[in-house]
């Protein structure tokens, strides 16, 4: 990678932003993710949670939040990983290298958003992104399947 490209990547770090004000808790992102990556029912790489309704004076407030890997700027999972499997790329993407992962789940405990999930069929723990075959491919970054498909 040229120095120029590296600098460009560092200036353009990817993080995932979900506009919760538009989230209606329809779970489309969860199912789209499973369809895209041929995942079974059980682990939820995307998990939509309902918050509320809570009382706010005479009104009620209710929100939905899609919890998944946010590709944090300072990812707690990467700092906590004992084998160096969890990594953050120059372009911002957080991923787990399945060759190094020992399935200790330290990353899951460290994640402040509770977004790490595992696939029971596999011995080792991929984070939400490691389960995504497209991530580590040099051929380029694929957009998360769920985001552009949700209503």
């Amino acid at each position: 990678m040229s120095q120029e490209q590296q600098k460009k990547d560092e200036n353009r770090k990817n993080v995932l932003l979900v506009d919760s004000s538009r989230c209606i808790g329809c779970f489309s992102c969860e199912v789209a993710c499973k369809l895209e990556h041929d995942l079974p029912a059980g682990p939820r790489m995307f998990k939509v949670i309902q918050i509320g309704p809570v009382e706010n004076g005479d009104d009620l407030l209710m929100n939905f939040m899609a919890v998944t890997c946010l590709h944090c700027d300072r990812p707690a999972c990467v700092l906590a990983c004992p084998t160096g499997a969890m990594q953050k790329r120059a372009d911002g993407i957080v991923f787990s290298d399945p060759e190094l992962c020992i399935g200790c789940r330290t990353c899951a405990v460290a994640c402040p958003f509770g977004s790490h999930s595992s696939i029971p069929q596999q011995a080792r723990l991929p984070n939400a992104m490691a389960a995504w075959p497209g991530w580590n491919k040099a051929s380029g970054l694929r957009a998360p399947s769920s985001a552009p498909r949700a209503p």
Partner: protein
Amino acid sequence: MLTHEPLRRFSGTRKDHDRAVRTVCQECTVGCGLLAYVKDERIVDIQGDEAHPVSRGRLCAKGMAFIQGVTHPDRITLPATRNGLQGPFEAVDNWEKGLDLLAERLRKTKDRHGPESLVVGCDPEAGLDFFLGALRFARLWGTPHVYHPLGEPKDLMPPVDLIDPWAPCSSWLESQCIFLVEADLATTHPVAFGWVLDAQQRGARVFAVDARFTTTLSKADMAVVIRPESGNLLGLVLMKMLIEEGFCTQESVKNRFLEPDAWLTSFNEMSLDNVEQKIGLAAEDILPMVRFLAGNKSLTLVTGKRLAFFPFHGIWSTMARAMGWADNTGGGWYPLESGWPRLNTTGDIAGADDKFPAVKKTGLAPYQFTTDWVAAAREMEPKALICTGNCLNDFFSPFQPRVNEMDLITYFGSYPNLTRKLAHMVFPAAVWAERDGLCFTNDRTIQWGNRIVWPSDACRSGLGLWIRLAQRFGWEEYFPWKKENGLADHTAFYNWVLDQFPETSGCRVEQLQETSQPVCWPVQNKAQPPPKITPIHAPPDTEPTIGSEEEDRFPLRFQATRIISRTSDVVYWWPWTRELMAENAVQIHPEIAQVLGIENGEDILVSGAVQTMEGSAWISRMVPRWMVWSPRKFGERRVVVHKKRQTSQEAFDILKAFLP
């Protein structure tokens, strides 16, 4: 500084495939365009159709998860029969043999109990062709008993002269206000709700009323909780107040209504006594709502399906015209689930000699568990049932305790559900992805849904079933839609269907097959100004609700509505959506849970006068104190909730002291 750009939507698939099929999702009545990618006759991927004007590439969870049902290993693939309701099924070699048996048993039942002993339940899962075929077969047979949860095509659709100019959900972007009445669009039709959010972002104000604090209410600028099924009465009261506050001018009324003075007088004389008890709102609570609505030039009224089953449904059309909303882009009445034209599929039979004497229509739609439907079903004496979907556990549940009185229960379906467990004969049905078909949508459009994959050899479409069965009674001439190879010709059938209604007769299936652009109906747009109509008049009085003994004993109101991940029982065979929300959840208000000592997630009982249902407590303020909600239907409207070790009487004693 942090800047961001939205992810670009992408089209196509990364998955290896042999062919792509452009079709229409048939899980609900929004009619989203989808592209299905097929490899070795299996669906490998589903993507929204970016070119589709309604869905714009978006799909909800149901529109993707359905593929798990198509290939589910439990699919019924062979016709089967048995004598009693207890023994094992015996597979029948082929459909022809099975249908011979069915015809013979039906004939015997007719000889013994008369033609009206046959009752047909049409779940939407079985397809529009099954329903329209059933209406036709029943007409020839001599039974009026054909039921569909959306009623007859005419039940939900307003009369033709009340149909507003075509205003699809995309026109909501032009609305200044969107008013949703007992319509939880965000849950039942999430892709259409995307247009509400877009309109809101462009400045439209969203106002929603419902019996629960639904997702739709949570996104609204103004949200009000009312008593269930009181929406039409609220419409009458709003109309009265709009007139009284001077927001509805006499001039506008004179241009639109026949006998406008009598109409105005009816509202002036309408009494507001008992209104508070019925709607749950006092007049002073309704006044801010009136002010919220008034002053909008273009306002869209979205009403839920169940309001169509209650009196004064036409008030919404009357209001949209009286206020002039219907005259402007982004305004008018948008009743949900009402996009079916008033098809007459038996008109030609009436003239056929006197061979098929007309049967009296009950005119009753099986809107779940209205007292009317339960009472009517109890009075009927069916001896032969033809069931689809899981109707014996749904709108046919009043028949469930009486299955042993039936001579014959036939199940035409795809999955081994409860209805199959209660059947004598089973015929495997194709699912929508396995058949061609016409789709009518909420937007009042017509679309063509292409078959994605072929069904297994033994699965047939609804039309295929009726054609073959009619053959056995010598009625081929009334079911002529057959290809040379003997299979049902859906193109010819639906061309005939479109011809049966003047408002759709200009449309051809071949034209729909070539495009992903929906065709709106009425196909011929009439340019002349809308004729004056007879508006809905206000009733002089609203009768008070008289507390029944049942209400005294069961102080909570039970309501079941759809959840976002579930259209019907078919979701049981879709693991991806099944895991999203507990089907046995029972929502109760935190204060009720507290006085009864119920914990979140605890196994509880919901008891009514006759039935009891088990469930898992979901303590939430989504329900008002006086309501219990569940995604599962249940044959009771008044209930009490209690812990497993508590009797309903003990819970009642506690609640009696707590509730006013």
